[in-house]
């Protein structure tokens, strides 16, 4: 299973190459929130590596409270952006895997 972005939508690609648009409003909202912070988003399981817990927490907080990103103009530099992207990828894959199971 793989997750990808097609036409600004999150899609799940199964082992046979079949694409299914992820019909999940919360994850869609998270994706758009992360995009507003990070700019371009890459979804790739291979970039996942351990980062400090705080990055996972920030992603989870945004997922649970989408307004969290809107209260302040927030500018992350490249390094924290990279770690947030990793945390976002992990969150996304964990969430989809959890649901699949």
């Amino acid at each position: 299973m793989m997750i990808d972005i097609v036409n600004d939508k999150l899609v799940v690609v199964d082992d046979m190459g079949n694409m299914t648009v992820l019909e999940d409003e919360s994850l869609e909202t998270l994706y758009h929130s992360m995009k507003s912070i990070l700019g371009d988003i890459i979804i790739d399981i291979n970039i996942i590596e351990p980062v400090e817990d705080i990055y996972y927490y920030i992603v989870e907080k945004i997922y649970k409270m989408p307004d969290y990103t809107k209260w302040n103009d927030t500018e992350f530099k490249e390094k924290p952006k990279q770690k947030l992207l990793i945390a976002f990828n992990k969150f996304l894959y964990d969430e989809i895997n959890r649901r699949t199971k």
Partner: protein
Amino acid sequence: MMKLIDAQNNYLAIDFFLTMTCNKDCHYCTSYTLEQRNLTVDMEFLNRTLYYLRDYKVRCNLLGGEPGLVKNLDEVVAAIKSNPNHVCEVLSNSTVRRRYPQILKDPDIIYVEHMILDFYEDEITLLGNPNYEYHDENDMNNYNLVIKTPNFEKYKHLYPEAMAKLDNKNTLWKEFNGRAPNFGEIQITKQAAEIDRKMCAAFPMVPVINFENQNLVHCSKKFANNAITSKEFEISQENIDKMMNFRLFKYENYCKTCTEYVQPKGHFNIKKYASILNE
């Protein structure tokens, strides 16, 4: 002059428990002893700690216990002020106003006075000198701190004059929280969401430098309650670096049952995280 809001938004706060000795016994406080002890700060330990923190933007909250009882408080304040990365904040029950009035005249020191013990039907009990007035609106960084105890909520309407005096930008209103020993019976705020407690665990609202044991304590709440001991760490450059980069503290078992108040918008706002993680 440092504005309080800038200090809150851009600096990580650390409580410096200079001494556990206090001259008051507030019912909602468990972070004190009436025993007179450790009233002179070990300057070698302070200077070493400040050196480890030298490159980080830190709001050093001097408290205890009552910092006004510390004999060399002037020396402590001067050491903190010598580094432009550090903001000095003093929380006192008004003993500082009596013994170190110069602190209130220095706008570079954020002075927070916690002088109300509680509200009752027939009086507001004060911690300090009854002749001391609440701080009027000022640009000297002098603040009133009022804890919104259950009694405050119950009786505040009986004191319109006091409430009017406190109604200015120099009054800080603090939610009542888990520091009261019988908090379980009179809980007025819900436990914060798990994610907020996780974020708090990574860097609490205020971790503690304990000057009595000369160590670093994860959380002032557990340290204060002393029921479940909060994680403690040696003061070293490595541990300070880890702490300031969110790598030292973990989500502990005591965080799971913690009832400390976290504002609904989250532990810290995202701009503060960005500011720190961008360093």
